[in-house]
């Protein structure tokens, strides 16, 4: 039988534009130390490490994970770095889950850091992800490609920029209860609408900030739970799917997983929910920490995960269905929209979901959370991952 896998402890730093008082490795160390402290563990209790690090060009040191080895108590230990772009933080949880579930290790520490503002050329780096012959010449990067998709989605479902703005207002407000969040505050729909247009339909307030910060999560098997954590969050389901890099293949009638409606998330969710025994998400899941670097992204995922039908999530948004006291609390942390330290953003979603289950979310804790889902999005929404954290052990079937 595979091992049960649970979260033993988590840590996230405050997220802000820069941390000039720390080096990258010191940020990683804060996270490792913080997670150990949260779990009541020492470095000797950690059997292996998975490092969460997306493109290194943002901070200018290839293999910054190795620079961190000594700082995160990694010398002599098995360590590997996972990198799936923006989905990295979801993929590291899946990798650590596999390492424990396989029986190879008793405990695994996931740790990572990001300082995207170390370069003024982040969007140039993000243009570098495209095909060198056909696409790099075009003004393609994360904002413009998601904008392309958003226009088509909004036309298809008659969604307006005001619908998107409603979500931005809610999440900035939620983030006021989250001491880690980068952007937060009471803003109005008019404020969002008045923010400068970047790539239609996205205005500045529809887009995430560039955040610096670090995060860590320690996972372990049932033995380690007994030793270290009286109220763990069990990783009951994982699902991850990759699609073509060719956006032009994914927005046409022949697409298998239509990108306009993010059908790919339905595939990732189906696998994840099957493993986690989730058959009725809206009633079984209380918190959804969906990865939303842009205002359009999070709710589309809810639709594909079966929380509501396709095209309806933004209308429900305007009925406050996704607020902290709504049907499902969506990104009570403020989400990626309020803090985006790319290398660990997906990990922060997982940490937030796990914390909600463990009852350690602090000011934005939602009462009585039995299950929480976290997602991560990488490439041009080409890599999607989905993870379910539960208060109870999923019975194997």
């Amino acid at each position, binding site marked *: 039988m595979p091992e049960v896998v649970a979260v033993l402890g988590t840590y996230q730093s405050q997220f802000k534009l820069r941390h000039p008082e720390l080096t990258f490795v010191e940020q990683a160390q804060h996270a490792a130390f913080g997670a150990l402290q949260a779990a009541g563990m020492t470095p000797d209790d950690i059997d292996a490490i998975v490092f969460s690090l997306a493109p290194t060009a943002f901070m200018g040191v290839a293999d910054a994970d190795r620079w961190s080895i000594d700082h995160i108590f990694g010398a002599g230990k098995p360590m590997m770095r996972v990198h799936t772009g923006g989905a990295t933080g979801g993929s590291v949880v899946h990798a650590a889950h596999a390492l424990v579930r396989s029986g190879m290790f008793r405990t695994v520490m996931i740790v990572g850091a990001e300082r995207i503002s170390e370069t003024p050329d982040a969007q140039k780096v993000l243009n570098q992800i495209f095909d060198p012959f056909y696409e790099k010449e075009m003004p393609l990067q994360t904002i413009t490609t998601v904008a392309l998709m958003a226009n088509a989605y909004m036309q298809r479902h008659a969604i307006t920029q005001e619908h998107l703005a409603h979500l931005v207002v809610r999440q900035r407000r939620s983030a006021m209860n989250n001491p880690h969040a980068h952007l937060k505050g009471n803003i109005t729909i008019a404020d969002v609408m008045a923010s400068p247009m970047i790539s239609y339909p996205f205005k500045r307030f529809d887009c995430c900030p560039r955040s610096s910060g670090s995060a860590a999560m320690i996972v372990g098997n049932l033995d380690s739970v007994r030793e270290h954590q009286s109220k763990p969050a069990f990783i009951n389901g994982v699902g991850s*799917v990759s699609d073509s890099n060719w956006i032009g293949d994914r927005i046409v009638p022949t697409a298998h997983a239509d990108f306009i409606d993010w059908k790919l998330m339905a595939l990732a969710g189906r696998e994840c929910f099957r493993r986690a025994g989730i058959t009725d998400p809206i009633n079984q899941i209380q918190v959804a920490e969906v990865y939303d670097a842009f205002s359009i992204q999070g709710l589309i995922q809810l639709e594909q995960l079966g929380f509501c039908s396709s095209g309806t999530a933004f209308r429900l948004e305007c009925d406050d269905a996704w607020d902290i006291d709504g049907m499902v609390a969506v990104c009570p942390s403020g989400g990626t929209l309020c803090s985006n330290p790319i290398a660990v953003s997906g990990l922060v979603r997982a940490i937030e979901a796990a914390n909600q289950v463990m009852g350690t979310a602090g000011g934005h804790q939602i009462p009585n959370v039995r299950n929480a889902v976290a997602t991560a999005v990488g490439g041009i929404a080409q890599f999607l991952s989905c993870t379910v954290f539960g208060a109870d052990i999923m019975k194997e079937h």
Partner: protein
Amino acid sequence: MNVYVLGLAIHEPSSRLDALRLEELVYRTARAALDDAGVTRGQLDSVTLGSCDELDGRSISSMLMAMPAGAYLTDEIKVTDSGASALCLATARLKSEDFDLGMVASWCKSSKTDVESVMRLRGEPFFTRPFGLNMLLSDALFAQAVELAFGIGEEEVVGRVRASYERAARNPRGMGFEVPSAADLRASVREAMPLRKGYRAPLTDGAVCMVLASERWLDRNPGHTPMAQVTGVGWATDSYRLGEQRLRSMNSARVAWRNALRQAGLDGAGGIDVIEIESQTGYHEAAYVRAFGLPEHVAVSPSGGPFAQNPLFCTGLVGAAEAVLQVAGRAGAVQVPRVRRAAAHSCHGYAQQGNVVMVFEAAGAGIA
């Protein structure tokens, strides 16, 4: 859950592969591995990639490379340590029982960029990068440390390099480099003390893919014969600080070796018939055979190792594929007779900061 190698492919190596773009190189290799395994892309339920953005020249290389490796609408993940690290994670994924049929893919066009520039970029910017630490310098520091630690003489290094080239010359999957004479090697330029140019394995372009299957999958799909069982995978990392103790102790190599053997149920090197070692220089082989305590009977790198081909990032996974071929009796002209167990070693990072050891066993041999 036992894990098996169902099929594999090693792309024909080249000093500079201009005819194919990276995607095409990997597609061809992945497709050949699927054909070798007798399965189709649609049957895969997981893909594990090992690649390096900085060598591939892309910020998120898997965006363009996941599909050629067979990941269309499939669960795919990427590690950036080495190709061999991808095999380790893929093995864990199958052992977790969440997956049953996995592709492992890794590649490297060493010719695409100046590798040493990438290596310098690996150095942290405050203390390491200013003095230009790169692969040559860190390998030289390692060579010096193990020379002193083990008393490795230049005579032995020359002998090992020559022998590697001789074995490599017989390897149908190798570059077929001319075997240099001992005098040639000794006369080659000193690049960084104590390394001479001739002691270092030349970089090449290449790719390697492996299809892994769980025992459950094999039970459900009778008629497929696995090439080998993956009985042990171990890996570890060393301190970033290249002090003398760090260099000479080869600690992560020993930990990886110990863990892989323990997982394979072995209490020493005695049960191993063949080992493929990632010897980036002649000093590496000399050091690793000592660190691993390999007895005389173990055949070391019958493929010629990196001297046969050296697509840097995936050289260790090529070695793993060679070890699997040995166990399956398919190694051709470099086949060692009666191989029951073969190990493969890979190292990555500055002065072998990370080490990986994999153990393969003849399929069925471990089943009582």
